[in-house]
């Protein structure tokens, strides 16, 4: 069953398949948002709150035509996390975001690989470059990844209400990356 249609629902990288969420992903998405690993993205939530976030994945696609992709390890089919472009109403800018769902998939460069691929794809498809990533100040791993991706702190850019966070700005696509 597919709830979500193109244009940007499928990307391949060397090791990952990035694809739009499917109903079968619901429990894994919820498990992440109930786990301590979601502490930098609003969690951990109770079951109802986690379900709200999971359903929101689908509604974001329905309302915006883009959203979070599930990062799937091609070799095993395991869901390892997400990568996406988020634009809730009222947020100052589109947010290039990523998650890795378990410690087992940390440290392999998967978030880098997924985010780089999506950043290139949305630049090509939509002309979106110089995107921001909203990152909590104590999220050291994500800050390190943003910097590896060539993003720099943009102290002038406002964070989305009501989240105090740092704003990292990715390079424009014509700049060397």
């Amino acid at each position, binding site marked *: 069953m597919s*709830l979500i249609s193109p244009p940007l629902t499928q990307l391949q990288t060397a090791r990952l398949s990035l694809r739009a969420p499917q109903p079968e992903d619901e429990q894994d998405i919820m498990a992440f948002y109930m786990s301590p690993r979601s502490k930098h993205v609003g969690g951990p939530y109770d079951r109802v709150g986690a379900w709200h976030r*999971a359903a929101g994945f689908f*509604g974001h696609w*329905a*309302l915006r035509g883009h959203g979070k992709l599930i990062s799937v390890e091609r070799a095993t089919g395991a869901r390892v996390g997400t990568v996406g472009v988020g634009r809730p109403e009222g947020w100052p800018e589109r947010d290039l975001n990523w998650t890795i769902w378990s410690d087992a998939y940390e440290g392999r460069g998967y978030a880098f690989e997924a985010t780089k691929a999506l950043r290139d794809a949305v630049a090509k498809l939509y002309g979106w470059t110089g995107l921001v990533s909203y990152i909590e100040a104590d999220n050291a791993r994500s800050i390190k990844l943003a910097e590896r991706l060539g993003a720099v702190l943009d102290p002038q850019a406002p964070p989305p209400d009501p989240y105090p966070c740092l704003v990292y700005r990715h390079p424009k696509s014509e700049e060397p990356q």
Partner: protein
Amino acid sequence: MTRIETERLVLRAPLAEDSAALVGFFASERAAFVGGPLALGLAWRHVATICGHWMLKGFGPFILTDRHTGESLGLTGPWAPGDRPEPEVVWALWDHAPKGQGLAQEGAQAALDHLFTGLRWESVVCYIDPSNAPSIALARRLGGVEDPHAARPAPTDLVFRHAPNSGARP
């Protein structure tokens, strides 16, 4: 997609163009009894959740619209996030919708009829804050009976139970 007509209303699934009215509601004081008022981004996220509810479950809250003008007036219908013990029926009117004319009752009654006859549900509850007198009155007019034993999301919530033959009261 399900479409329900009543004397004055049409109930239909939400469309992308409803998002402004929905976001406006959840960001407003009128949403005080349903978790609001929310910051704009969170209100939008909640609207995305409502759309996702329809996509994942195949049912969800309907948009209440004026049958003649098509204007959106509120929402009503089933709400079953996650694995709550049982589904709920919800209702709300937007700030600009006419009040005191029974529109919420007319919409909610049609939604309940659909749940019982269309989806063949045997029972549905609503969770209401004890200080939300207008909703308590509406739950009773719709035939809801307080269920002191039902599980509830917040310990202070009242639970009203609706069943196919509980029958609306004028």
